[in-house]
């Protein structure tokens, strides 16, 4: 893995980091923060779904666990926000490892895996909506206490830089995994589990590791949600919306690519905002558009927007070499 492989990450993160220096509008920054939040959740999904080929429909289980752990540790046990945030990520990773340990050894994959992850998220949602520790139906409010010590930022720009640093870390992790032996195993498992096993790869262990890391990233998004909005309840934490959006961002952006979730999240959020601008605040319309885009992407660009970019690059490269364009 050469240092050059990290150049695109550095350029993109550097460019994004400059945005608050130019744009001062709270509305725009808020939009970007929510898009980056979704990016982080999507990066988690992409690690397991994109590279590993295990399509989860229940990443809300990790998002929600991270969010609740952060909120509960602060409000009920008086823990400082920084360790609470860290424990939140660990709790999400733990839930990921537990679900993985239950499902992968029994050979659940494809639609069955999607179904069982969905069921786990639903069980957690129902439990969270009745258990006293999660505030049952009322939810949890985190006390407003702006300042770096409580991980609450008074300016939107600071929040933006914080979530951007998390996204940047996830981008680096993704890049490292792509170039590592583990990444090659993961892709091998996606492309053919039996073949990978025949070559000495342990598919269950590879998938389990990927799921734990994937859950940790999505849980981090949940932790940030709590620190940013200072509120969490069962429909937000474990509701199907985050499972669907995390999946959408990766698929639309380009499944199994480093920048896919970022591209996808920006597109999905832009689309949602555009829909709201056109029709006013009509419930359902943004999600309806997401659904249409999802089908169109699966139909026309199975490798997502990043895939289109690659195809264009390949086309130009061929053109410049004068190799002709007989290939379809």
């Amino acid at each position: 893995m050469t240092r050059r492989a990290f150049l695109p990450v550095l350029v993109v993160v550097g460019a994004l980091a400059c945005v608050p220096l130019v744009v001062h509008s709270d509305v725009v920054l808020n939009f970007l923060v929510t898009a980056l939040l979704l990016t982080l959740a999507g990066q988690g999904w992409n690690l397991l779904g994109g590279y590993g080929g295990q399509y989860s429909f229940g990443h809300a289980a990790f998002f929600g666990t991270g969010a609740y752990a952060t909120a509960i540790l602060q409000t009920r046990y008086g823990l400082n926000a920084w360790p609470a945030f860290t424990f939140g990520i660990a709790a999400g990773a733990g839930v990921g490892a537990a679900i993985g340990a239950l499902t992968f050894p029994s050979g659940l994959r494809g639609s069955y895996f999607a179904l069982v992850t969905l069921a786990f998220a639903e069980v957690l949602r129902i439990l969270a909506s009745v258990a006293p520790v999660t505030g049952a139906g009322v939810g949890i409010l985190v006390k407003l206490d702006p300042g770096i010590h409580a991980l609450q930022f008074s300016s939107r720009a600071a929040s933006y830089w914080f979530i951007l640093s998390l996204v940047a870390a996830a981008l680096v992790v993704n890049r490292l995994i792509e170039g590592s032996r583990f990444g090659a195993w993961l892709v091998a498992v996606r492309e053919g589990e039996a073949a990978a096993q025949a070559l000495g790869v342990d598919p269950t262990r590879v998938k389990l590791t990927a799921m734990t890391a994937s859950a940790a990233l999505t849980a981090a998004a949940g932790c940030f949600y709590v620190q940013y909005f200072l509120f969490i309840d069962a429909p937000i934490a474990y509701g199907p919306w985050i499972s669907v959006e995390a999946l959408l961002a990766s698929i639309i952006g380009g499944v199994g690519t480093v920048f896919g979730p970022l591209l996808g999240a920006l597109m999905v959020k832009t689309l949602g905002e555009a829909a709201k601008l056109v029709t006013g605040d009509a419930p359902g319309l943004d999600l309806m558009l997401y659904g249409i885009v999802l089908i169109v992407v699966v139909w026309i660009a199975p490798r997502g927007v990043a895939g289109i970019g690659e195809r264009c690059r390949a086309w130009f490269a061929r053109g410049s070499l004068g190799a002709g364009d007989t290939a379809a």
Partner: protein
Amino acid sequence: MQLSILFPAVVNGILNGALYALIAFGLTLVYGVLHIINFAHGTLLTAALFAAFFLYRSLGLDPYVALLLLTPAFFLIGYALQRFVIGPVSRGSDSNILLVTLGLAVIIENGLLFAFRGDTRTVDLPYSFAVVPFAGLFISVPRLVGFAGAVVVALLLWLLLTLTDTGKAIRAVAKEKLGAQLSGIDVAHIYALTFGLGTACVAVAACLLIPTYYVNPHVGNAFVLIAFTTVVLGGMGSILGALIGGLFVGLVESVCGLYLGESLGQIGIFTMFILVLLLRPSGLLGARA
């Protein structure tokens, strides 16, 4: 004392379970033939419930009469969805089918939310609360009709699959797609036909459900995992399995609800679902796929 509480719960659970079975028939049929999990199944149920609701509200059409109209209509909708959307878009890839049906579910649910808002609606029929006495209990008439409906639909589906040429073709495609194609069966047509049948089952379920139930854009979600549980329990692709699975799921929900409280009743279902998937993915009755 114990028994006097338990018995009504058991009867109620079985009556509910019949409707779960009815919803699960479509899912299991589609899985058995196309080998796909249709994530849009629950939202198609929501759409059918809305259709039944508006037929009653605007035209005064009784849901049991609307059944005769909605069943063929939803058959056509299902046929068209598979033939013109799911089939061509997914190009036969499993993960694509998963995503396309998920996309359809998101579109239908939020389209309904956009059109009708989140309000919960009910129909007031003269027989909504009619009861008949049975073994010291009062049994709701619409629920009893629903039970009978589920049994009749199961019987009709079984007859269709075993006695008719179309049924034979469906079974042939389910068993060996390529072989069926080689013997002149139009696989794309059979796929769409099966999907249409599955969607028609949902319309029947909606018409039987609406007299005692409510409708809002999210109502189908509650049934999605229940229907999946039913199908997994009964063995993917088995009509009889779905019937027995449905009754069992209804029973478990009702008894769990009795002991754990209404909102936790569903936990019993999901736990059962996860356990069955982990321990015996081929279902309690199903043969290994």
